[in-house]
């Protein structure tokens, strides 16, 4: 099993994250952890329910998982979770904001 920090982290677009039903601003997501903007004026909860939900114009993806607080500051909180599918990391890569930069060399 890889160490958590070794998983690629994506700055995602078209994929919303909810913490206990509340929409949050995502900073980045990996296959095993999600970093979000910390809730204002309330301490981050230790155990939460995380929901990932894609926008209608993006490849469909929905998942509900348990999240455990790994780290929290007044600005950000990191929750670890167990990937809900074997190909979860690859599926998250579809939402990477830089995905279109992987345009292949011109085949001329």
């Amino acid at each position, binding site marked *: 099993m890889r160490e958590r920090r070794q998983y690629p*982290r994506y*700055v*995602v*677009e078209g994929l919303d994250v909810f913490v206990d039903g509340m929409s949050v*601003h*995502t*900073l*980045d997501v990996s296959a095993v952890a999600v970093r979000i*903007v*910390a*809730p*204002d*004026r309330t301490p981050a909860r230790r155990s939460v329910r995380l929901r990932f939900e894609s926008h209608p114009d993006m490849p469909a993806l929905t998942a509900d998982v348990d999240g455990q607080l790994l780290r929290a*500051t*007044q*600005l*950000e909180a990191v929750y670890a979770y167990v990937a809900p599918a074997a190909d979860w990391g690859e599926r998250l890569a579809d939402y990477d*904001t*830089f995905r*279109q*930069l992987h*345009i292949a*060399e*011109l*085949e*001329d």
Partner: protein
Amino acid sequence: MDPALLQTLLTAGPSRRLDVLASSQELRSKDPAAPLMFNTPYLNRSVILKFVDPKGSDQADRRSGAMPKPIRTLIYLPYDVTDPPAGGESLLYSRRALRRLHFQKTNEEPDGQGSFAADEATMQALDDVPAFNPFLLRDAFERAGLPLHEAYLDLDQGTAKRIRRRLLLRIRPLIVAVLGSSSGLVGEALEHMVDAFLDPARKEELRPLAAALHLRSDDAVEVLGAWAGIAYFEEELERLTPQIASLAQWLATSPRPRERVPPSAAKDFASQIQRIRIGVRTAWQSLQAILGQYQASYRSLVVDSQPAPFVEFLRDCRQHYWSAGDLFGRFEQSIYGWRVLTQNYQDESLPLIQYTDLLAFLLRTHLLGRENVLEAPAAERPAAASPA
């Protein structure tokens, strides 16, 4: 101006050509009281073009030590407003040149005040962008605090929303990475700063971010704006990539004219095609390099907490922004011209006259001002081609 060059410039896509004349006429036909782009009538009859000047940047820019711009702004005033390609006056923009033109046209000495001063500010805003794409244009006018009627923008709201959303998603992690928890910044204040990033009127709020990124306060907004502008070219390149690939594939088939030509002419055509291919490939690689560096430096900051590459990227960010605008404009223009000149000849060879026009057009588009970086290595020079 050379008529062939004029034709090339006037058939450019929206990144290179701002048809003030056509937009003003259309606007006035719908609303006779609508404010036009300029106060001075002759400027509202102009076509503003981005022009790759082989001689390089403005002498005044060089003397002042300003960043050299690979693209100049050219004001074209058609003699006949019903037929702009038939000929006209053209002027490479500089503040001094515009004042000279104004004196010639009106016999009035500009005094830096009044309605012409507003026109000078408008021209400067147009000169301050590497391309006229609506998103960039609107941003430049907002930054300069100048009004601009939507009729001049033809802005696709879907694209504008998509770019803005993408930028917001990238800016939030960026601010968190740069300012971190030690800044005392919390959720709501963070969101204010994220919004301020895309609102030129609130540039003062970006001061802490600019300081943390080692940006000078007097050009921080311009640098951060250039960084955001690169995201625009990234989005547009994604849209244009299939067409660029089609052009590259067409060139790779070593197209020949329909008519038989002497061996020497065939050899010359093959050589021109090879030069265009190198031009296209080099431009593609240059654009990819800029976007790759843009991505790598961002990831290094946001994911690896290593700010140095990002700070370094920002140092040259305006240059990257202008280069990306230049390269993107070349692609857009070549795709546009290629489509127009081949549209009646699907899967057929072009007649000789269209064929030579197209090669000349693509050579001008891709090689003008870049000859020094496009010298073909000996191994890539074409072997003698056989006649058609």
